[in-house]
């Protein structure tokens, strides 16, 4: 037992090992050290996100408009519900974890195993949910056009509601297809997949649909300057929503189109600022990786519980240590949830 769990009640020899400087065992203290450094890593990421957001405060995507999907509710706008569900799943798996720790204190092997299993399940469901969220984010819904200036323009109707590219763009004859290796030279790679529509098709269809307008990345602030702006469509612009241009200005913007963007990757995304997608992938990805490793570690400890390792040790402190890590992952999610979805 002495090899893995330090109980440290010996006061006779200060330097002989087994000391507990802050009243915590060696393993637990090291877990706290790790958590502090990992907390600072995540703080660095979120602070960098804050930096970019404050820097582009006038054209940062609005989360409510990006994350609107819910399983089995196709076409229904459900902002926030899904991510709220994910948050509940993670909080609940934190609860089962702390119940496992509690059962460990009372030396109830079966209960520890049961609660550990629930925690692992919760973690897996969370990671799965995140994969689904990523899928929707990558696939996109409406599609947009990136202009020569590098900004994203989106299409809306007379009521200011978003319009999908698929709803108005028609194919022109003689379009190109993606070049694959079997039609090219032996040293070539397959070409990256090309968007469903070309810029020329979008431009032609936009000309034909005179009811369509353009929404830019810029956020309308309802200041005197904004109200006097002749380029904006009167009656459609709302405070803290994106600016909607008049038909004449929209046509100028569309004529400037350089690429059709559907969904998101690390270089382009249809939601707006490019950094938004980068930070989304990076921060939720890093958190998801933490959840995944948490599940793996929990599973190892779960096996040990079932095998009776800690029962033989008469000490369930290992469960407590992985519990600390698991709660930390939950703690990080609480912040990611706030800064990505709410604020």
């Amino acid at each position: 037992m002495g090899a893995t769990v330090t109980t440290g009640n010996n006061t006779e020899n200060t330097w002989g090992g087994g000391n507990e400087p802050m009243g915590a065992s060696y393993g637990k203290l090291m877990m706290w050290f790790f958590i502090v450094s990992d907390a600072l890593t995540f703080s660095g990421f979120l602070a960098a996100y804050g930096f970019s957001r404050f820097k582009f405060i006038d054209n940062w995507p609005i989360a409510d408009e990006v994350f609107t999907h819910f399983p089995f509710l196709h076409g229904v706008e459900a902002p926030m519900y899904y991510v709220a569900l994910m948050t509940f799943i993670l909080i609940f798996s934190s609860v089962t974890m702390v119940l496992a720790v509690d059962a460990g204190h009372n030396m109830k092997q079966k209960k520890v195993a049961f609660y550990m299993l629930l925690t692992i399940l919760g973690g897996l469901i969370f990671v799965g949910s995140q994969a689904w969220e990523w899928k929707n984010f990558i696939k996109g819904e409406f599609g947009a056009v990136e202009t020569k200036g590098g900004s994203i323009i989106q299409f809306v109707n007379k009521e200011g509601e978003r319009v999908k590219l698929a709803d108005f763009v028609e194919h022109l004859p003689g379009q190109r297809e993606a070049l694959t290796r079997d039609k090219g030279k032996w040293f070539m790679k397959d070409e990256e997949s090309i968007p469903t529509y070309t810029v020329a098709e979008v431009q032609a269809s936009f000309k034909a649909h005179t009811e369509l307008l353009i929404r830019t990345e810029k956020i309308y602030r309802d200041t005197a300057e904004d109200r006097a702006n002749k380029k904006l469509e009167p009656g459609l612009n709302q405070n803290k929503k994106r600016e909607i241009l008049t038909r004449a200005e929209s046509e100028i913007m569309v004529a400037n189109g350089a690429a059709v963007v559907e969904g998101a990757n690390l270089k382009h995304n249809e939601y707006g600022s490019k950094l938004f997608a980068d930070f989304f992938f990076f921060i939720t990805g890093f958190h998801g990786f933490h959840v995944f490793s948490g599940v793996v570690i929990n599973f190892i400890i779960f096996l040990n519980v079932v095998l009776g390792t800690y029962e033989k040790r008469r000490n369930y402190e290992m469960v407590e240590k992985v519990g600390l890590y698991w709660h930390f992952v939950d703690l990080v999610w609480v912040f990611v949830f706030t800064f990505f979805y709410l604020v």
Partner: protein
Amino acid sequence: MSHAHEHVSNTKRIWMVFALLSVVTTVEVYLGIIRPSFLFMNNFLSMNLLNWVFILLTLYKAYYIVWAFMHMEGEKSSLRWSVVATVIFLVLYLLFILLVEADYVFEVFKNSTIKWNF
């Protein structure tokens, strides 16, 4: 001796904290969906009141996760403060520098002749 002090089962408190975290999350989501304009349209320190509410509720949740779930309340105060004070100080410091700088860069972009929205 495997137990330095006798542990009592505190499942009741765990469920209480779970209820509390759930209620706070529900309130956050509710506010996030309706976005009441008296909070959303009024600013304090160049951030709207709704965001301040979100951040305060988040810190409230974080306190309960660390104190109850990670059992910080049962640790010695030396451990408690070496963890909490370090993180709080460094995070505030980092945020102060980055956000102030970002706001400055924003002003520079805004007041210059750089054109991006075309």
